[in-house]
């Protein structure tokens, strides 16, 4: 009985962590380049809706994912234009997009799906990877994930490689730390930041798509429920480092899964405590009580040459 509970818990924890892993990994790269995307939540929501809609219309969840990434990246493009070229306040733009995304997805959902909200949306099936099952404790849960979940880990590796071993990654790090120096060294600061934002958008697209076509096979209004903010929190908690961020996402995923486990185990822990736990942890981390985490020096600051 406990084993079964455990398996369910671990499986849920992983599942809930996946969209956060996608979004946080992309956002981490963007923030390393100095751009904060508060609109992450909005991008994920838009992606979730686009994936659901496309999958329902075409019957192919893969097409859903593709369209979701495309749409989220387009939103990111506009965000980049506003934040980098027009040098608008990144906070305002982010919140504006979130409001817009909530309104747009809710509206379109009601218009299109209103009467049909009972129809299930074609989604990804779970894979059953036999060679994973044999890992103790987490094996069964680990093997019963959808393919997209494994892609999320792949993206963490890809991002880490990008940052550490490519000149693009070097440029990203320089631009987020000291854009003036990077500019004098010949780096195109704007282009690097654009690419960072687009990267975050694409990955947010994957994260949002996961939520609707891999995780739950449906779309509900405001289904991200602040996952985007949680992802940003994970980046902070992870000290802008790809692996610690992954750890933070897993931690938050499990913290969210605990919300379901606790009543089942009939423990007398208020759900509220579990709800606020991720944010409290991040606050403690950012207050410097857990090691020294240094944010990219130029984060949220617009850049202008010769200013």
């Amino acid at each position, binding site marked *: 009985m406990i084993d079964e509970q455990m398996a369910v818990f671990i499986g849920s924890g992983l599942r809930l962590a996946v969209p956060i892993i996608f979004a946080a990994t992309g956002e981490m790269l963007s923030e390393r380049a100095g751009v904060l995307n508060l609109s992450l939540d909005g991008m994920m929501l838009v992606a979730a809706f686009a994936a659901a809609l496309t999958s329902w219309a075409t019957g192919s969840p893969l097409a859903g994912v593709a369209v979701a990434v495309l749409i989220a990246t387009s939103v990111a493009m506009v965000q980049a234009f506003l934040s980098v070229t027009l040098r608008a306040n990144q906070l305002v733009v982010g919140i504006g997009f979130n409001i817009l995304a909530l309104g747009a997805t809710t509206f379109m959902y009601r218009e299109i799906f209103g009467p049909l909200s009972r129809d299930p949306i074609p989604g990804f099936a779970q894979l059953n990877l036999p060679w994973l099952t044999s890992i103790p404790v987490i094996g069964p849960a680990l093997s019963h994930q959808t393919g997209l979940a494994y892609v999320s880990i792949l993206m963490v590796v890809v991002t880490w490689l990008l940052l550490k*071993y*490519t*000149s*693009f*990654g*070097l*440029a990203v*790090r*320089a631009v987020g*730390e*000291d854009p*003036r*120096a*990077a*500019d*004098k*060294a*010949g*780096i*195109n600061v704007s282009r690097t930041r654009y690419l960072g934002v687009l990267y975050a958008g694409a990955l947010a697209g994957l994260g949002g798509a996961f939520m609707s076509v891999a995780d739950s096979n449906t779309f509900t209004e405001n289904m991200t429920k602040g996952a985007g903010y949680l992802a940003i929190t994970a980046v902070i908690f992870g000290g802008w480092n790809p692996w610690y961020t992954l750890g933070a996402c897993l931690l938050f995923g499990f913290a969210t899964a605990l919300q379901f486990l606790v009543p089942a185990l009939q423990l007398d822990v208020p759900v509220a405590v579990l709800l606020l736990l991720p944010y409290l942890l991040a606050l403690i981390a950012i207050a410097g009580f857990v090691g020294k985490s*240094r944010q990219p020096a130029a984060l949220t600051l617009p850049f202008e*040459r*010769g200013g």
Partner: protein
Amino acid sequence: MALLELSHLTKQFGTFTALDDISLGIERGEVHCLLGENGAGKSTLCNLIFGVHRPDAGTMLLGGAPLHPRGPAEAIERGIVMVHQHFSLVPNMSVAENLMLGRAKAVLKPQDIIIRMEQLAAEYGLEVNPQVLIEDLSVGERQRVEIIKCLLGDPQLLVLDEPTAVLQPDEIDALLGICRQLTLRGKSVILVTHKLGEIGRVADRTTVLRQGRIIETVAMEGADIRSLVRSMVGRDVQSAGSVLAATIDLEQDAPAHPATGLPSDVNGAPLVPEAAGDAVLRLSDLVYRDADGVTKLDNLSLAINPGEIVGVAGVEGNGQSELGLILAGLASPTSGSIVVGGQSLDGCTPQQITAAGVGIVPEDRHAVACIKELSLAENLFLGAIGKFSRFGLLDKSGRRKAAEAMMREFDVRASSSDVAMSSLSGGNQQKAVLARELSLDPLVFLLAAQPTRGLDVGAIEAVYGRIRAARDAGLGVLLVSSELEELMAVSDRIVVIYRGRLVGELAAGSFSREAIGAMMSGHEHV
């Protein structure tokens, strides 16, 4: 054919004309100096060549082909590199990473960069450890990295913008040597400077800029320094007591005008005055360790008497900044004591220090002395915001009147006291800071750190005039400057700071550039 041909270049920033019809040719294999006061347009010209700005009119030709870089990347591609005053290095990345920045292929190959770096080190003597983080390097070492970075692409033209301001005397020699090496290999160097001594040692030709225009271009063989200065400033600077005149003489190793009547003994040996019992400032065994545990001040002891100017000579980075921060109350010494006029300042807040009669003109006025977004009036009374107020509300007209009075007394020029501090020229900003500090009551001691940095000649004279007047009125003045010649022209005695301690002291009348320079580099004066 000239390597770089500039024709009728003009550049405006808003209504301000930075460069006006500049035509100039840079030959291959020459060291070409750009001489001019601050604000003459030297940096702007370099920025045009390097692609940071685009000219409003005129053309540039590189090797006969048109040159209009849309950014530094293009300039670098064409073989033009620039060593900046504020380096183009990212602090929390390593030397190797910084070298790869902007020039690596898709995948980073640190090994290749390190090999290339070692080649250059051998050729030019520029040794640096590739793994070290930039923020852990000294200023001189950072400049070395900057130069290596520039040389990686085998450029044709190097532009150096005031490179020696932050170097020790022996590092300056090394740098000038590198410039010569480069020209031997057929490269050209544009060296921007306001130091006449350097021009004499390294330039093939010198172009003098004044207020955005070229006044003249001369070959250095047989050139007359004094006439260059006249071109640079626009008038003769022979007035008695003029600091610039003294500076020129000193740079030419002529005997210094006596700054004051302080005696030296018969043999010219320094006569160090015994610190009188009523010293206005007494530092005793001051020790300061920074956040990383590095000792920046190492048992520094000094006494300043009323009515004297004590100059502190030394290359930047030897503890002057930390001393300034401590005296301003922004940092606490690890141990040691500070006594002003008999009153101990240990553990005092900035407000208490000011109340004890300490005035500070800090080296970085934008960071410490004034808030440039605020108005001139607000800055003049920054330490006394409550002075012009009623029931917590500001008495703006009262403050304006007082500010205008100060402006008149100290010749601070601005269209009104309500304009933002940032719209004043550097010289007027400094005069405003001086006005504020010299108006303190009580005032017994003044620290002036790098007071003339970035100022034109007129402002420099005004600043030193005020400092001398303060000294004559009985103040004790501590003058910290990396402009050795100015110190020699103004101080009553000079102490030399090296690695956080005072390593030597000379009285006026026995100042010698060699002696002081040697002490600044850490060599014992024989």
